[in-house]
């Protein structure tokens, strides 16, 4: 019982510690990067249970702000190989277990 309690605490700690948005790789400009990151965080928090809606929100906002056409992948386990326009890729982790990849390629 105690162990499970501790396990839970650790989990909670881990989640708390590891849930800040961590940019893994990007070649965006500073302003664009900050804006995109905040948008992703907002979307993931809003649609915490539904990755598709979150991705949809991000994609539509990016299309409006920065032009078509953007692609967004959100998930906990996936591999990818994409071709993106230079200076238009953001790959970040969020929430301890979510990975978000946003790129532009028309």
């Amino acid at each position, binding site marked *: 019982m105690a162990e499970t309690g501790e396990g839970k605490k650790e989990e909670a700690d881990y989640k708390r510690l590891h849930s800040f948005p*961590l940019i893994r790789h990007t070649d965006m400009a500073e302003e664009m990067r900050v804006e995109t990151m905040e948008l992703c965080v907002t979307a993931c928090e809003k649609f915490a249970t539904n990755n598709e809606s979150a991705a949809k929100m991000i994609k539509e906002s990016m299309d409006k702000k920065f032009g078509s056409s953007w692609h967004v992948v959100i998930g906990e386990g996936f591999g990818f190989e994409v071709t*993106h*326009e230079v200076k238009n890729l953001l790959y970040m982790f969020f929430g301890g*277990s979510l990975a978000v990849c946003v790129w532009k390629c028309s």
Partner: protein
Amino acid sequence: MPVPTTVKSKKPPGAGLKVAKPASKKKDEEEGVDQGDGWDEWAQGKALIKPPDQLELTEEELKEEFTKILTANNPHAPQNIARYSFKERSYKPISSVDQMAVHFVLEGNLIHVDSEEARRQRARQDQTDGKHWDWTFKLFPEKPAAEAEAEPDEEIPENPVIEETSEIVKEERPDSVEAQIGKKEQKVTNQFNFSERASQTLNNPLRERSCQTEPPPRCNFSATANQWVIYDAYLEELEKQEKNKDKQKTFSAKKEEDKLKKNKMSDDVTKVVKVVKIFERMVNQNTFDDIAQDFKYFEDASDEFREQEGTLLPLWKFQYDKAKRLSVTALCWNKSYQDLFAVGMGSYDFSKQGHGMLLLYTLKNSTCPEFVYPTSSGIMCLHIHDRLSHLVAVGFYDGCVAVFDLKAEEGGAAQPAFKSTAKAGKHTDPVWQVRWQNDDMDNNHNFYSISSDGRVVSWTLIKNELVFSDVIKLSLEGALPECLEVVEQPTCGTSFDFHPKIDFLFLVGTEEGKIHKCSKAYSSQFLETYQAHNMAVDAVKWNQFHPKVFLSCSSDWTVKIWDHTIRTPMFTFDLNSAVGDVAWSPYSSTVFAAVTTDGKVHVFDLSINKYEAICQQPVVAKKKTKLTHIEFNPIHPIIVVGDDRGYVTCFKLSPNLRKKPKEKKGQEVPKGPEVEEAKMEKLLSLLRDKHKT
């Protein structure tokens, strides 16, 4: 052989018919087999053959008569139709039911004679064929005749006209058949029947043009997102953050804040500074465009007519608002950036001592100095390092010396990088001259200074401090050397200059008018002393090319040229006014310039005229201003002159002043002084001869 079957009408037709057929078939078969006998049977009589499922009817029933009535009613039409009436809101039987049954429909193309379409067709037919429709006359014989009769009564009786009018009248009634009559003669344009006319203009030929922009560059990226990858990434990030926090704790928080603030500030400003600077330069160039053109290209053509004289063309004038009350006390050109020069501002007036300024101007911007360093005490002298042109050594009126580093970012007030303090051997009297020296053996920069307190001090920049060491103490010589050995009265040194080639050799000019030749090696003894002037020696300058010749000037109105091996001057020039400064020209060994307190610049060329200046030009507007310093630019043919009102003016030397000694084509400059030296020797020998005799 057909076998007649008796079909009694009395029987119900359906049943009878059905029965009859199989019976007849059977009969046929039987007949076919028994053909020979069949004739007899057929001839004899008929015997009714009954099929097994024949209805058994009684005789009465057989005789019963059925009546059949043929009506015109449609057997398929319903007998009672009930429709819902919305008005009465109930189903109502319809009284009569349509009994018509259409068995066959064939669409034909016959039209009635008098219908619209028929008439039109006839009209068209008439036009093409040109035939009269004779039968129309028969149908309507009277009408055309009546109309034809009526018209001539109305119109003028001329046959063609009548015909025309009749035609015209008929035209008004095109639908009537009569219109066809006159048509065979003329094809008349019918105002109600428009005929089309069309034409096509030339279409410009079309050409396709297309172009393709370069698509934005693309590149590939691949990664895997797994739970463990994410976890690892977060762990790494946390570790980094912890390390950063540790580092931050060691630094003081205030410093960071300051740095951040500075960075923020400088980010905003530095982005603009460069652009603004370029802009400023552009504006200045445009404003002073004519001056810039003169500076570069103007050569005074009238010099060809003036045999030996030259002129100074005024170019830029440099002034700084905040330095208005100060006089120019020092000038120095920068060797690396030949358009940059330093101006030291202070005051020569003993009673009016205030602050000072170090300004650095560039020729590209005459309105505002590039660097401004306000100082607490007036600057008396300055020197820019020959190689490291960002180091400026400055001597102050209060006896301090300082080194300014132009490269250092201006944090708050521009502070000198090094400053001598009272402890560390600063002079007790104004510092009159500073000079950079070559780096010493430890590769530290060092410079010398001379001051009225009689000391020549060498300062070395070690790390962050100025370390001094006295080189020479000037003292009175002569008079009573033996009795007053103990008493060493320091004399005031007012200027010094180091030999350009012989490193340890330097000259010192004193307030008494003497010039001492000294060596860095000997700290108390002079190598030589020259009785130069009657008043303080304001400047001594070695010749840039000739190793033996130097200049001195003094407030006793004279400028003297010396050979350091000979104790008497080679040449003496009287300029009618106290001479503030002299300078050798960098391009010729025989040209030098002097400035006097009456506001004139005198330029001498010994190879042209040994006795007089080839140019004497007053250069200031107000006559009361005194010129304090003059410097030649290392490469451009310009000089800067400073005066005691704080203005610095730049002049261009006319060609006559810049004549290089024309000897052999290969070696120009060294030849000059040698020739001059020969001349000097001649002169000297003449002088000596005179003395002897």
